């Protein structure tokens, strides 16, 4: 089926949901090994908040459930089988908050929302201070937001309308200054343009500028533009959008370009034949904000828009050889706005959660600190240290 977007399509025989995409969720499987599931059918739910469901990325047979230390779910893998078809969803019963939320929860779209602080899936009955739609991606080699959103203009604006109804708080659609996303003229959503380099597309920057959170216990929610399109697809057509646009780039990629790929596609199948011979390392994300895959992370993540393959092999584990931090001026420009990088990084190194909270750690998630880890001479992985501190702070709430 030729889609509305003119891009090379790639299919993979394996799909996988990553446990690491859904932080803080205690997974309860709704399917057995060997079951055949339709695309969009619920395959897992959160044992603590059973309304929150995670749906199958595509039609297929469950072939493997990978578990790591302490039986933590690493991934649930499916073998693609087109004959199984997709689940049809009925449109929401009404325009009120509860039926709109029920639609999102039933269809699994709720699991695409993220809270700041902490980066969790929001509670089904929680109220945020604001909702952010991230319709901007300024990272190097990012897929073109304007082309993708314009190709799905109806879906996008329908989903934004739905998001304005799930809560009475302001909804911000954050976009690049050169591009204004298509919205219903009567929409309650507020468009905000952002500029200022590669970091302008990070949700943390938008939240920090419009609705800083963390100190008073409030939270903001954010969602990426491709997930908004997927939600709109469900609304308008009753069936899930089973594709995503990602860009494949990096100096080891023979033909860097954008691809239309299945949701949660297997990375090694996607990269087969795309990469030069020789040692390479794959980053999930761009060359600036991308991170090395965690063990078991062999599939595209929930909001992943880029794959970067660089020449040269990753160095071995050196995090145990941690040197002192040299507080140079070069760290300053890489820090998120309103954050003093050196005191924060020192607090993270010490694991001083209270100090880190005062210095703004709650405004951040891992992606915000990746460039600082790369630039700092101390060899520390601040993204990892931040998550430890956030876990401590979350436990205190």
């Amino acid at each position, binding site marked *: 089926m030729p889609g509305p977007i003119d891009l090379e399509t790639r299919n993979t025989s394996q799909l996988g949901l990553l446990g690491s995409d859904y932080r803080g969720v205690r997974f309860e499987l709704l399917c057995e090994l060997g079951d055949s599931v339709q695309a969009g059918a619920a395959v897992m739910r959160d044992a603590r908040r059973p309304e929150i469901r995670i749906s199958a990325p595509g039609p297929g047979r469950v072939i493997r459930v990978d578990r790591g230390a302490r039986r933590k779910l690493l991934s649930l893998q499916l073998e693609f089988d087109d004959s199984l078809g997709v689940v049809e969803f009925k449109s929401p019963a009404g325009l009120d908050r509860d039926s709109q939320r029920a639609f999102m929860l039933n269809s699994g779209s709720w699991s695409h929302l993220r809270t700041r602080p902490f980066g969790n899936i929001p509670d089904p009955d929680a109220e945020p201070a604001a909702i952010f739609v991230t319709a901007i991606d300024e990272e190097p080699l990012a897929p073109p937001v304007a082309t993708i959103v314009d190709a799905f203009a109806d879906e996008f604006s329908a989903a934004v309308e739905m998001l304005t109804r799930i809560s009475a708080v302001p909804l911000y659609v954050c976009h690049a200054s050169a591009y204004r996303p298509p919205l219903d003229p009567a929409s309650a959503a507020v468009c905000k343009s952002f500029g200022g380099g590669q970091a302008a597309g990070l949700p943390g920057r938008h939240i920090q500028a419009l609705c800083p959170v963390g100190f*008073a216990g*409030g939270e903001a929610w954010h969602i990426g533009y491709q997930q908004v399109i997927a939600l709109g697809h469900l609304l308008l057509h009753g069936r899930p959008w089973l594709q995503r646009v990602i860009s494949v780039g990096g100096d080891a990629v023979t033909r860097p370009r954008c691809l239309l790929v299945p949701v949660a596609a297997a990375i090694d199948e996607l990269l087969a034949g795309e990469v030069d011979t020789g040692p390479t390392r794959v980053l999930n994300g761009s060359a600036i904000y991308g991170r*090395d895959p965690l063990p078991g992370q062999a599939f595209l993540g929930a909001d992943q828009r880029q794959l970067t393959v660089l020449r040269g092999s990753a160095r071995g*584990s050196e995090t145990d050889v941690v040197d*002192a*931090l*040299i507080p140079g*001026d070069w760290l300053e420009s890489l820090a998120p706005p309103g954050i003093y990088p050196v005191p924060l990084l020192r607090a993270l190194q010490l694991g001083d959660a209270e100090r880190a909270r005062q210095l703004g750690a709650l405004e951040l998630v891992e992606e915000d600190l*990746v460039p600082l880890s790369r630039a700092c001479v101390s060899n520390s992985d601040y993204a*990892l240290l931040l998550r430890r501190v956030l876990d401590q702070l979350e436990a205190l709430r």
Partner: protein
Amino acid sequence: MTSTPGNAGWAGVGRQRIQRIQLLALLPVCLAAIFNSGYQFLRFAADTDAFAGADLRSRLAMSLVLNREQPAIYDYFLAGLAHVLPMLGLALLVGGLWERIVAQQRHRPMEPGFVLVALLFTLLLPGAAAFTHIVFGMSCAILLGKAIFGGEGKYFISPALLGIAIVQVSFPAASGSHPLWNGLAGYAGSDAISIYYRGGEAALTQAGIDVGSAIVGSIPGTLGTTSLLAVVLGAALLLLTRIIAWRLLLAQVIGLPIFATLAWLFGGADELPAHWHLLLGSFAFAAVFIACDPVASACTNPGRWIQGFLIAALLVLIRTVNPTHPDAVVPVLLLAAILAPLIDHAVIAWDIRKRGQRHV
């Protein structure tokens, strides 16, 4: 820890790279130091024969120089080399020795940072500093300035500065009073600023000091601090690579003329005018290489502005009201380094208050 998400490992080479750039930035200063030592030595050795041959370095210089009466470029260079190299070599030897002992005792690899410390320490010494002072000062710099805090990246006062400060406090008369190096026999001041305080502009002219020579660096002073030109070259490299914070440097460079002009307006015309504050003494060198040491300066942007202006204000204050410290750079930078954590603390406390008011 089983994996390294993020990019731990890429940065492992970062620290050595920083040190190499810092050493490279000191190269023009070293060349200027060598030429100026040779120049000052031959200039005064010609009329005061008594001092030539007084110590090892002078004898070495004399034996190397081909033509004392009309020296050529290489004569200056050789005479300067004869002075700078033994001092630097000794400082490196002492620093390296202590570094090695510390590394052995702690069962850690040796840190290469002592090279930079030794270089900075030597460049802040007067050309006739006694070898015993170098041994004493370098020992203090490595042990008290660096090792007891846990090594590189953990000290809070630049080790070279601490070494120099201890030498100046311990041997106040010896460290700067050699007549060969200040052009005025019998006066216990180390540099051109003392000349100004003795006789004003006339004395400077008589000693051959004008704006041009102060920029090039052919004036009396501690070894590496005379040439503004060389310092500017080094500073440009450090600023381009963002190793030093431009805010801290700019605050000092703007602050000094402002406070100097204030002192000049309210203190009277016999105070040092603003341009001499910048050109004479070791301000320029120390502002770039000591005050902006990334480890031992304020680490928040507002803190950098505050610390820079504080250095400028204290410097003018001490130079103006305390004639026993004509240069005053060393005590001022010590004070500023000690205050840096306090400044940062205040900036952060203010920021935390603001964050509490802003957040939902």
